[in-house]
């Protein structure tokens, strides 16, 4: 009995602990309620990732785009750049500031601004090209002073030792070209000086980086070509767009015939502001920008063009007159032409017809603010269209139209299949791709091929063409273009925007301009190399 009692006691005791433990276990389980939820989320995330990857892979692989990669070489080895190149800047306005920055020189004020905005560090990571800006030439004292201060700034990418070569101001470009201590020149003057200076520079044996447009008059076209060809200089035209990673991917897309036979390319300019229409002689408060006949050598600025009295308007807004520029053709279409020609290598058009007029900016200008040019390439079975407007900024993009797909190339690439495509018939029928949305977009920020992205992502990626991303790092495209020029000077290779491309571009824009002025279709005579 005693034993029994004891047993009973034990039984009761163990019952108590068991229920206590189960209460505790339940409390613990309650406390851990989030853990299975977290597990479920992890499972879903993994499922989604593998689904996204397989979907992208399938489209990208079927199109044979799985091995498009961004270029990775950004810096030259120090061996490749042991010789210092001494650069002279001819013209030191806004564009020259950007070119200097690309070379590795900032005005001290810009150094400060960049430091304040936190963008100096990124600039300091730029490759040191082992160049020295040793000469500045500008007809305007203020601009020349800016140039000297820029060339002398010791805050430089790669932190090289300060140059021992003094920076000299030249009063005219011939004086600079005569100086044996200058190896190369960058021409960033108003356009009517580009060809005469480039021709003289080639004859003087100076390497040339010239801003667009390459020529303004027909006689300059062959003269420039011959001068560069007869010399040993490296000529690079200032079209930095080809250095964008996006552009190199577009090149692969064309090479792999993703678009099918391209018969139409549409290029556009869409601006709607005074500055966009080249009215740039006023500051933010509406006051005239600095400059008068005392501080500007007006005779030299005019060059071989007809005598005109100095005005601040003419000095800053020279693009408005045909004596100095071809307006949208020279300033904007040149970039479009280069983009298309670098991609498709179409060369000089057989015929061009242009039309347009001054419909909105009715000031003292000669250049049209609405201009449309049709370039025919029967030998390539292709039409290139340019349509520029300065009174509406609706973005019409740059579009390559093929039988199988349409590619829009801007700050990003988007490729949309054509509903009647032969090549994608199967995929269209299966519903993997549809003509109502892009089948491929390439985002410059990631440099990766990205199939099927959201509308919002597409929207943001279509902005900005001034920088590109290589290996996740932001890089100035102008820097890459200038770097290519410097590398080619050292290696003797041909840069991308070489004299052949400049010749083709020069011929195309001269034809477009002539057609506009003479109100007729013009033809290219390939035998005599002239416009008829």
């Amino acid at each position, binding site marked *: 009995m005693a034993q029994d009692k004891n047993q009973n006691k034990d039984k009761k005791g163990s019952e108590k602990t068991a229920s206590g433990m189960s209460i505790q276990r339940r*409390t613990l389980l309650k406390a851990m309620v989030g853990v299975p939820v977290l597990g479920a989320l992890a499972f879903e995330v993994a499922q989604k990732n593998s689904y996204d990857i397989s979907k992208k892979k399938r489209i990208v692989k079927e199109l044979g785009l799985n091995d498009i990669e961004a270029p990775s070489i950004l810096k030259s080895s120090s061996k490749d750049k042991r010789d210092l190149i001494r650069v002279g800047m001819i013209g030191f306005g806004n564009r020259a500031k950007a070119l200097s920055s690309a070379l590795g020189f900032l005005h001290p004020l810009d150094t400060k601004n960049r430091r304040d905005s936190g963008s100096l560090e990124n600039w300091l990571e730029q490759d040191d090209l082992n160049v020295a800006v040793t000469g500045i030439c500008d007809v305007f004292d203020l601009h020349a002073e800016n140039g000297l201060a820029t060339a002398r700034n010791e805050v430089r990418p790669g932190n090289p030792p300060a140059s021992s070569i003094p920076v000299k101001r030249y009063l005219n470009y011939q004086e600079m070209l005569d100086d044996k201590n200058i190896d190369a020149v960058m021409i960033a003057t108003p356009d009517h000086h580009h060809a005469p200076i480039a021709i003289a520079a080639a004859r003087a044996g100076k390497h040339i980086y010239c801003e667009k447009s390459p020529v303004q008059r027909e006689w300059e076209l062959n003269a420039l070509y011959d001068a560069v060809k007869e010399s040993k200089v490296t000529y690079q035209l200032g079209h930095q767009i080809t250095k964008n990673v996006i552009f190199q991917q577009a090149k692969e897309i064309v090479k792999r015939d993703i678009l099918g036979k391209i018969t139409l390319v549409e290029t556009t300019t869409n601006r709607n502001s005074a500055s966009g229409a080249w009215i740039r002689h006023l500051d933010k408060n509406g006051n005239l920008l600095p400059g008068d006949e005392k501080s500007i050598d007006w005779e030299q600025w005019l060059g071989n063009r007809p005598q005109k009295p100095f005005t601040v308007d003419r000095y800053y807004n020279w693009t408005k007159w045909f004596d100095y520029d071809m307006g949208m053709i020279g300033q904007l279409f040149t970039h479009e032409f280069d983009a298309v020609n670098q991609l498709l290598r179409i060369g000089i058009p057989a015929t061009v017809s242009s039309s347009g007029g001054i419909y909105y900016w009715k000031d003292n200008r000669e250049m049209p603010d609405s201009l449309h040019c049709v370039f025919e390439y029967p030998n390539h079975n292709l039409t290139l269209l340019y349509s520029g407007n300065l009174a509406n900024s609706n973005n019409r993009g740059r579009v390559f139209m093929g039988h199988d797909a349409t590619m829009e190339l801007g700050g990003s690439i988007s490729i949309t299949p054509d509903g009647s495509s032969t090549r994608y018939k199967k995929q269209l029928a299966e519903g993997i791709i549809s003509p109502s949305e892009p089948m491929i977009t390439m985002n410059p920020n990631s440099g990766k091929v990205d199939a099927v992205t959201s509308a919002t992502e597409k929207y943001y990626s279509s902005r900005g063409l001034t920088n590109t991303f290589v290996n996740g790092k932001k890089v100035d495209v102008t820097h890459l273009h200038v770097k290519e020029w410097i590398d080619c000077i050292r290696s003797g290779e041909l840069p991308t925007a070489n004299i052949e491309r400049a010749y083709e571009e020069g011929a195309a824009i001269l034809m477009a301009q002539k057609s506009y002025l003479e109100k007729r279709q013009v033809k290219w005579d390939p035998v005599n190399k002239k416009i008829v």
Partner: protein
Amino acid sequence: MKNEQKYTTLQLTTLVVLRLLIGWHLLYEGLSKLYNPSWSSKGFLSESQWILSGFSDWVISNSSVLNVVDFLNTWGLIAIGLGLILGLFARTAAIAGALLLLMYYFNNPPLIGLEYSVPTEGNYLVVSKTLIEAVAMVALALFSTSSVFGLDYFISKLKKS
């Protein structure tokens, strides 16, 4: 911390489910940003209007500040999401989450006259889902469940002993 014992089972369950769902949403938002190397708050902030637009412009104009904001946003979302799901420091997580979402809301409030270039996925006037979720998190902070249904149970136990 005796609140939980006053709720009926149904009330308690509803509160816990709400907490788990919001936690799930924020955690996945954070993870998506973490997985997408090209994500930046720049696009969102450049759309900013109303009272916080000056602040947003300052953030965008300064790349190091933008990097900090991107980092805090991504990891903030992840931490808040984990806190709500696991019920760990859930009250702090809910308050932080409410503040974060209110910040989103005040950057892009759907008020009359404010136009955004990116379309919204619904139709909002003054009240948006972001605002509702923010207020729901305030409710979660006030009606806490984590000291029973969450790892906060262990913390309250530690405090007692």
